[in-house]
């Protein structure tokens, strides 16, 4: 039995979501006496291999391949290659495992839950003809059955999903598992990149508007901005607050429409799913679709002038009042403690 963490490698540092996947892989493996592998795919695979061993992967499979340097991490360049690589690694390593012990022949593949993964997870499942459970917040595995918990119905219902098979794929929600180091001696296998076949797809343009470089799933502090912030004055206040509390800005759908912020920042059912240390909701009512994207946050603080706003039902701390009065006073208080 083995648990394999599939890690896209295209940045200087491994993403924290990848460390979480490694940590969860090690945890699942130790409770089912399985072996941990890391499948590192991308231009920085070699670079991240020692880190993977530091987080408990005893077998490292490396597929170092070039992607368009300007378009790192985007699907045409990397995602398609990950599907092919996963297929290739399964074929190669199945032969290897069989040779050792046929009873060992069952595999759990764990992915993070970024857009990069969402783009390819279905294709990976189809390619391997294996069951897939996406976006899980917890899972266990006995070698043939995977039991996973995943929020559904706009995060109002927890579904327990069971999958059966000798190969099972799962993606895990970011921000829920504290990365824990577990250094091991690792053996390394390097593979030659297969011919890339993008089926005629061409990346025409990478659109990276200002402020669009943030990967929200990585941010420990997120300030969610809703319709309650509705002008440049408000936007400036939010920016100032963000720099004082080391926060990254996210938006509700209201600002997808207002055009005041980049679309990349949308949190919710149709945007990013985040679970930061702190989610500070400013002028967000708490619609089910928004909540679906942030309800797993460790701490939620909400400011809203409406004491009946649904966001208060899940906030650890709710502040009832007008943002345009509270934010200047809060910024002043923060500046005086820093001075």
């Amino acid at each position, binding site marked *: 039995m083995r648990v394999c963490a599939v890690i896209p490698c295209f940045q200087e540092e491994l993403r924290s979501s990848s460390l979480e996947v490694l940590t969860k892989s090690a945890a699942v493996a130790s409770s089912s006496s399985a072996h941990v592998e890391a499948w590192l795919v991308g231009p920085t695979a070699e670079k991240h291999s020692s880190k993977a061993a530091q987080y408990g992967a005893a077998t490292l499979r490396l597929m170092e391949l070039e992607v368009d340097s300007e378009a790192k991490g985007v699907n045409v360049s990397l995602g398609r290659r990950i599907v092919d690589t996963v297929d290739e690694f399964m074929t190669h390593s199945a032969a290897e495992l069989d040779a050792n012990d046929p009873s060992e022949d069952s595999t759990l593949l764990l992915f993070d839950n970024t857009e990069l993964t969402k783009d390819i997870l279905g294709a990976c499942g*189809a390619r391997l003809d294996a069951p897939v459970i996406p976006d899980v917040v917890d899972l266990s595995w006995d070698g043939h059955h995977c039991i996973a918990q995943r929020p559904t119905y706009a995060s*109002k*219902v927890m579904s327990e999903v069971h999958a059966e098979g000798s190969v099972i794929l799962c993606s895990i929600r970011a921000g829920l598992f504290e990365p824990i180091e577990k250094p091991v001696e690792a053996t390394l296998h390097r593979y030659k990149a297969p011919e890339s076949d993008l*089926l005629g797809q061409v990346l025409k343009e*990478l659109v990276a508007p200002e402020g669009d470089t943030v990967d929200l799933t990585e941010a420990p502090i997120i300030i969610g901005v809703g319709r309650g912030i509705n002008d440049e004055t408000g936007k400036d206040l939010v920016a100032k607050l963000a720099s004082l509390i080391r926060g990254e800005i996210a938006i509700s759908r209201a600002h997808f429409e207002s055009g005041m912020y980049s679309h990349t920042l949308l949190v919710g059912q149709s945007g990013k799913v985040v679970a930061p240390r*702190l989610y500070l909701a400013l002028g967000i009512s708490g619609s089910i679709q928004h909540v679906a994207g942030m309800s797993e946050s460790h701490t939620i603080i909400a400011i809203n002038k409406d004491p009946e706003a649904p966001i208060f039902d899940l906030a650890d701390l709710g502040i009832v009042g007008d943002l345009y009065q509270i934010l200047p006073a809060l910024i002043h208080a923060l500046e005086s403690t820093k001075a």
Partner: protein
Amino acid sequence: MSQDRTILVCAKETPDTYSDLSFSASGVQFSNPRPVLNAYDASALEEALVLSEAHGFRVHVVMVGPERASETLRKALAMGADEATLLTGAPKDADSAVIAKILAAFVQQFGPDAVIMGRQSQDTDVGLAGGMLADHLHWPWTTNAIGIRFEEEAFWVKRQGDSAQEWIASPMPCLITCSNNLNDPRIPTLKGIMASKKKPMHLVGIDQLPGGDALSTLAPATTIESLKPMPERAAGELVEGDLETLVDALMKGLASIPETGVGS
């Protein structure tokens, strides 16, 4: 600009997740018992209709579902789709993998120039069917579209990634999954509703598709074992009062999170 070109929209119906939800012995119940067209698929259909208006594609909608689902499918016709097919007889509790195999058989037989569908289902948020279908078809695919253009005989898709967006061009045939953030689906007009009654809707048993015998007996490899209310977050403190009280409470709250750097 040939009339023969077709965009196939894959759609499903879901419970009305906007309505109130309650738990019963048989699972989850919604206060609105009528299923709705999945919001993401409605966006996919809207985009197909816009492309059709500009470039003359025919728009055909396909749904896997029970006969009753023809009501929901009729709504897609009322929005403006030209034709619809309801694929009946799918195994009970079919998961995305089963649905993708059924759709693959239909697409292979039907031969559209593009498949456009929602990026996920609004009830379960699974989001696997698109990628699975594309891989079965061996077609290029793009997910999470927030913009689509048809240019130089290719579909250009603006895809929202983890950070940044990208324009990706795919030759035909290709598959696209849509965010609901690329448009506001039109509401059927009375005229549209009247017209929809005359539009062709085909009921096809999946056993009539290529490889149909195998399709009807596919067993899902994933099963939903239980549905439970989400563990409630412990109700927090609600602070009302003068500005000083509010700011004090906020400062304490922020200082309790080391990552904010407040109070350290």
